[in-house]
C-alpha cells in the first residue's frame, strides 16, 4: 500500500513538472472574428535601446492605447542577441505578435513564411507615402510584409575644423574626395577612415554603376563594381586613408571622435554617439561624394506580423499606428531616427537642417539586403575587400571573381 502511495506521488510530481513545460493552449480559431468590445493583448517585440529611444516607443504606445482602448500593447524587450533570441522564440512559436525586423533579415523571414503579408489590412494609397526604396525591402511579389519604422543612410561625416585648417572644400565627387583626403592627411591624421566592411564600400560599387544582387543572383563580378572597389582601396594604398584597426580604434566613429581622421562614412547613429563621446569635435554631415552616379546603402527596420498571431487585425492596427503619421511625427520631433514617410520628412529636415544629407541620400539608396543568402554574400565581399587590402590579389576584379566563384 505504502509503495502504491509513493509510486503515485512520484507519478504526480513528474506530471506536475511536465505540465509546467507544456504551453497553455489559448482560445484558438474563434478569435479570428474578433469581438470589437473584447480586450486583446498584442505583444510587441523590440530590442533594448537608449533611454531616449525607449521613451519614444513608450510614448507611441501610450498614444496608441488612447486611440484603441480595446487593444493593449505589451512591450517585450528582447535582451541579448536579438537575431538569435528571436529565432529561438520562432522555433518555439512563442514570438511576439508584432516585432522589429531588420531589412537584412527580411528575405529569409518572407521566404520561409515567418511573417504575414499585410496587404488586406493596409490602404494602398497610404503606402505611397513611404519611401519607395525602403518599402521595397519588405515587399515580395507585390505583397507588403512590413512597414518601415525608421531608417538611416550613409553619409560623409567630416571634421569642420580640420577642413578649415587645410582650407579644403567638402568633396562632392570622387576626384574631390581624393584631393580632400590628400590635403587633410598629416603625420597623425588620415584624410578618411575606410573600414574593411562591405556595408561601407558597397555604395562605391553602386556609384560606379555596379550592383551586388539583382533579386535572383549575384552580379558583382563586373568591371563597374571592380572600379568602385578599386577606388575605395586606392585611397588606403595611397596613404590618404586607413582602416579603423590600423588607426587603433574600434570603428569609424571612434576615428572621428578621437580626431584620427578628418572624414568617415557612417549613418545617423553617429549623431548621439558624437554628442556623447566627443562633444568638442565640430563636425558636419555631407552627402556621399558621387562617382559616375549617386549611390548609397539604406538601413531600415520595419514592424512585421508573426504568422502565429491570433489577432491579425489588432496586430495590423498596431503596425499601422506605429508607422502612421502621428507616430512618425513623434519620431521626427524626437530627432532620434529619420521618419520613413515622405510627408513627414520635411518636418524632420526643418527641425534638424544639418541632417538633411542623410534624408537626401535615400532616393539614391538600395536597402542593405541581398536575398536569402545575404550572410554568405557579405562574407565573401568582406573577404574580397581584405584580399585587396592585404595584396592577396592583383586588383578588385580578381577579388570579386574569386568571391563570385566561391558563391556559385
Amino acid at each position, binding site marked *: 500500500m*505504502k*509503495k502504491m502511495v*509513493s*509510486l503515485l506521488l*512520484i507519478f504526480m*510530481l*513528474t506530471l506536475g*513538472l511536465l505540465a509546467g*513545460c507544456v504551453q497553455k493552449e489559448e482560445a484558438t480559431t474563434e478569435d479570428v472574428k474578433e469581438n470589437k468590445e473584447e480586450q486583446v493583448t498584442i505583444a510587441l517585440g523590440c530590442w533594448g535601446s537608449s533611454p531616449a529611444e525607449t521613451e519614444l516607443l513608450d510614448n507611441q504606445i501610450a498614444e496608441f492605447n488612447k486611440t484603441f482602448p480595446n487593444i493593449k500593447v505589451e512591450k517585450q524587450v528582447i535582451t541579448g*542577441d536579438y*537575431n*538569435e533570441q528571436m*529565432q*529561438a522564440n*520562432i*522555433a518555439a512559436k512563442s514570438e511576439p505578435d508584432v516585432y522589429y525586423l531588420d531589412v537584412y533579415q527580411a528575405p*529569409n*523571414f518572407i521566404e*520561409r*513564411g*515567418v511573417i504575414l503579408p499585410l496587404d488586406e489590412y493596409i490602404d494602398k494609397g497610404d503606402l505611397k507615402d513611404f519611401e519607395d526604396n525602403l518599402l521595397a525591402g519588405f515587399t515580395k511579389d507585390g505583397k507588403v510584409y512590413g512597414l518601415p519604422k525608421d531608417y538611416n543612410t550613409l553619409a560623409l561625416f567630416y571634421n569642420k575644423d580640420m577642413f578649415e585648417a587645410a582650407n579644403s572644400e567638402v568633396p562632392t565627387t570622387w576626384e574631390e574626395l581624393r584631393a580632400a583626403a590628400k590635403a587633410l592627411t598629416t603625420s597623425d591624421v588620415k584624410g578618411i577612415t575606410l573600414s*574593411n566592411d562591405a556595408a561601407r564600400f558597397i555604395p562605391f560599387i553602386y556609384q560606379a554603376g555596379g550592383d551586388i544582387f539583382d533579386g535572383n543572383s549575384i552580379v558583382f563580378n563586373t568591371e563597374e563594381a571592380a572600379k568602385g572597389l578599386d577606388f575605395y582601396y586606392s585611397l588606403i594604398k595611397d596613404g590618404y586613408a586607413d*582602416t579603423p*584597426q*590600423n*588607426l*587603433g*580604434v*574600434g570603428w569609424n566613429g571612434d576615428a572621428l571622435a578621437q580626431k584620427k581622421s578628418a572624414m568617415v562614412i557612417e549613418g545617423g547613429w553617429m549623431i548621439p554617439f558624437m554628442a556623447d563621446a566627443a562633444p568638442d569635435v565640430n563636425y558636419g554631415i555631407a552627402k556621399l561624394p558621387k562617382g559616375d552616379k549617386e549611390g548609397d546603402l539604406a538601413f531600415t527596420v520595419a514592424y512585421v506580423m508573426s*504568422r502565429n498571431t491570433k489577432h491579425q487585425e489588432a496586430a495590423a492596427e498596431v503596425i499601422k499606428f506605429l508607422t502612421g503619421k502621428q507616430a512618425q511625427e513623434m519620431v521626427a520631433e524626437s530627432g532620434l531616427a529619420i521618419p520613413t514617410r515622405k510627408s513627414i520628412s520635411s518636418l524632420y529636415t526643418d527641425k534638424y537642417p544639418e541632417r538633411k544629407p542623410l534624408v537626401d541620400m535615400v532616393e539614391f539608396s538600395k536597402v542593405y539586403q541581398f536575398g536569402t*543568402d545575404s*550572410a*554568405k554574400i557579405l*562574407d565573401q565581399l*568582406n*573577404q574580397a575587400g*581584405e*584580399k585587396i587590402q*592585404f595584396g*592577396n590579389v592583383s586588383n578588385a576584379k580578381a577579388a570579386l571573381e574569386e568571391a563570385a566563384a*566561391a558563391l556559385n
Partner: protein
Amino acid sequence: MFPVLYKEVKKMATNLIKSKTPPNKRKIFFVKRETLDGWLFVLPVVILTLVFLIGPILVAFMLSFKEYSFLDAGTMFDAKWVGLSNYTDIFKDKIFRKALLNTSIYSLGVVPIQLTLALSLALVVNSKIKGKSFFRTAYYIPTQTSTVAVAVMFLFIFKSDGLLNKFLGIFGLPAYSWLNDVRFALPSIMTMAIWSSIGLYMVIFLAGLQEIPDSLYEAANIDGANKWQSFWFVTFPMLKETFFFNLVVSMIGTFQVFDQAYIVSNGNGGPLNSTMTMVLYLYRTGFREFKMGYASAIAFVLAIIIFILTLVQKKLFGEENQM
C-alpha cells in the same frame, strides 16, 4: 559539478539494480522500498539530465540528418530528412576545413604551452617562497574573469596603438596591427587563451603536487638524488594522473574555443577566416545562414574529433588510470 553528480547517480543506480532480493520475504518490501526512495531522491537530477542534456543531444543528433532552420513553419520533427548529406557536405566545405585547421593549430599551440607554464607556476607556488598565497591568488584570478572581458582587454593590448606596440616602440620597432593580420590574429587569440586559463590548470597541478608524500622526496634525497632527478623521477611520475586530466580538459577546451574568436573578429572569423574556429563556424551556419541541421552535423563531427583525440591521449598517457 554536473559530471560529479551524474557519476554519483550512476553509481547509486547500479548499486540499486545490483542489490539482490534477499531470501527473507519480510525483507523484500524493505529493499524495494529502499530502491524506490533511491529513485525518488535522484529523480530531480535524472529529470534535469534527461531534459537539459540527453534530450538536446538526441534532438541535435536527429537534426544533423535533417534540413531545418528555426524559421521553418513546421517543428523540427516534421523537417525533411536528408540522410547523410549534411555530413558529406561538411567534408566538401572549404570554410569548415579552414576552421578545422585553425582550431587544430590553436589547440596544438595552446595546450603544450599552457600546461608547461601551469606546471612551472604550480612548482613555484608550491615551493617555500615568500607570499605564495598572493601568487596563487594572482595567477588564479584571470580564470575567474569572463572571457569576453579578457578579450576586450587584449584588444587594447594588441590594437595598433596599444600596449604591445608602445612597448615594441621603445626598441624602435614599428607599430603593427596584430589582430588585423592573417598571420598574427590567431596567435594573438592563443596568447589570450593561455593567459586566461593558466590559473585553472595551475591549481589542479598544485593539488596533485601536494598529494605527493614527502617521504618519497626524503627517500630520493637519501639515495643521493639532486633536485632535477627528484623532479624527474618522483614528481613527474606521481603527477601523471593529474597531467592526463589537465591534458584532456585543456584539449577539449581548446577545441571548443568560441568567445575570443567571436569578440576579436566581430563574429566574422576574419581577417580572411584566419580566426574562424569550428564552434564559431557552427554558430554562424546555424543562426546567420539558417542551417540548423548542418550546424548540428558540425557539432557531431567536432564531438567525434574530440572523442578520438581523448582516446588517443588515453592510450598515450593514461593507460594505468581510469579516466
